[in-house]
């Protein structure tokens, strides 16, 4: 996928709950919020574990960065597409090995090569001085 020069990419909005996630991405790390009491991951991150209602058992753990394509959409025309990205482009939903799902883009394959179930791993894309995003590439099964 390619960006259209001169059109800004909308950045994530940051609050106290998701700041550790996006700070880690800026450092080329993928971290996930987990409740150590329940052993359950939470995405998006929250101030309270919805399972055990604890506000002090949530911690950040390193993700394997590995997973597979769970679903995808393919923007084939400008009509409903993001003007900052050249069409055609695909957006994928990745299911990480930890079970958490993240929306992202594939960096190494064309939209028509995407298949549900394809094994992938995380890479980091430094888009500008103040924006790094997690993207994915194919990996051997």
């Amino acid at each position, binding site marked *: *996928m390619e960006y259209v020069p001169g*059109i*800004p*990419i*909308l*950045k*994530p*909005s*940051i*609050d106290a*709950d*998701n700041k550790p996630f*996006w700070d880690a991405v800026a450092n080329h790390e993928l971290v996930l919020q987990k409740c150590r009491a329940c052993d359950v991951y939470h*995405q*998006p991150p929250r101030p309270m574990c*919805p*399972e055990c209602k604890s506000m002090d058992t949530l911690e950040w753990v390193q993700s394997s960065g590995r997973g597979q394509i*769970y*679903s*995808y*959409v*393919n*923007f*084939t*025309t400008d*009509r*409903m*597409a*993001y*003007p*900052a*990205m050249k069409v055609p*482009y695909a*957006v994928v*939903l990745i299911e990480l090995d930890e079970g*958490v*799902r*993240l*929306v*992202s*883009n594939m960096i190494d394959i064309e939209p028509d090569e995407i298949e*549900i179930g394809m094994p992938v791993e995380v890479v980091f894309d430094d888009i500008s001085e103040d*924006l790094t*995003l997690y993207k994915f590439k194919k990996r051997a099964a």
Partner: protein
Amino acid sequence: MLQEYVERSYRPDLKPSVASNLIKDNTAIVGIGATEFSRDSGRDELDMACEAIKAAVDDAGLTMDDIDGLETFTLERTSMPTLVGSLGIPNLRFSNQISFGGGASCANVMHAAAAVATGVADYVVCYRSLNEASGHRYGRGDGYVGYLSEAPTLHYGYFFPFGLLTPLSWAGMYGMRWMHEFGVEPEHIGWYPVVLRENAQRNPKAIFHDKPMTHQDYMECQMIVEPLRMFDCCVDTDGAAAVVVTTAERAKDLKQPPAHILAAAQSSPPEQEIQTSYNRPIITGLPETWYMAQELFRVAGVSPADIDVAQLYDPFSLGGLVQLEELGFCERGEGAAFCEGGDRIRPDGELPLNTSGGLLSEAYIHGYNLIIEAVRQIRGTSTSQVENAELSLVTGGPGVPTSGLILRR
């Protein structure tokens, strides 16, 4: 957390008893009104709201002096005090606005019914006015670029930077997985929009009146965001619509046969996002619709087989098809197969759907045109009237905190 949904096993212990439901049979929709539906109204939204509300109040045989409550969306751009001033409502005793777009449509009626059932208001008008076609187009991603530097809410921050920023694409992500898991092909999906377009041919108010569409036209139309095509999408519309709600007792003395509210329900289950609930155990369904339907049928004391006609909030054809599954009209993954060939869902079929053309082919007044059509079916005045319709179901937007109604004669 969604275990009962995954297993489709209902837990009645979680809900209040039917005996405590004051809305059931005690409330009714007694007036309906709408402006013309167009692609370019040339009017402002306040102007259209006044016309639709005046029409609904007239239809009920009431005057503006009777109205003491207003219900609408948080998305509504008309200012409520300005509207009250323009309509000349003498004293607004009750008002409320509900979030999350189309999910609020039937919820507006539910809250109005709760208000009249408890006596905090006598006659509540629910309304929605929007220039969705000629004004700000919510459905288009390019609307954000240029005036925002970051995603407008926290959760959108996980989607917008990757180019996923339109409702069509959010729904497509569910749809692609649904098609994958259940082996659904595009030709299976096409029958639903084709039948709705047929219904629009009988409805002179419909945007797509006089614009017929065949199944072949559907298959050949432009792909917008794969897996969704042009004719899978609702029709952006300028217009306004309104309904009047009061008690069944007061309804007896009014001009129109009342559409009694047999049940009204809202739902927002766990892990709910605004059309992007991708971290639920399964993403091929609409848990909010399932939970809402469980409550709706339990309160009504009827089953899906008893429903004579349904108006499903269908921003995209897939949303209508998956709602068929979650409402219990068919099994999971069978929504498209249920509609194959179209006979089951035509006005003389076992479950006539979206008889005015729905959001795909009549108009997109954020679901209000569906509520009006559900009332017409009870009155016997639809342009695609279902014979002897006694129970008329209508839903609010899927994929967001949602709502629904069952109306009866």
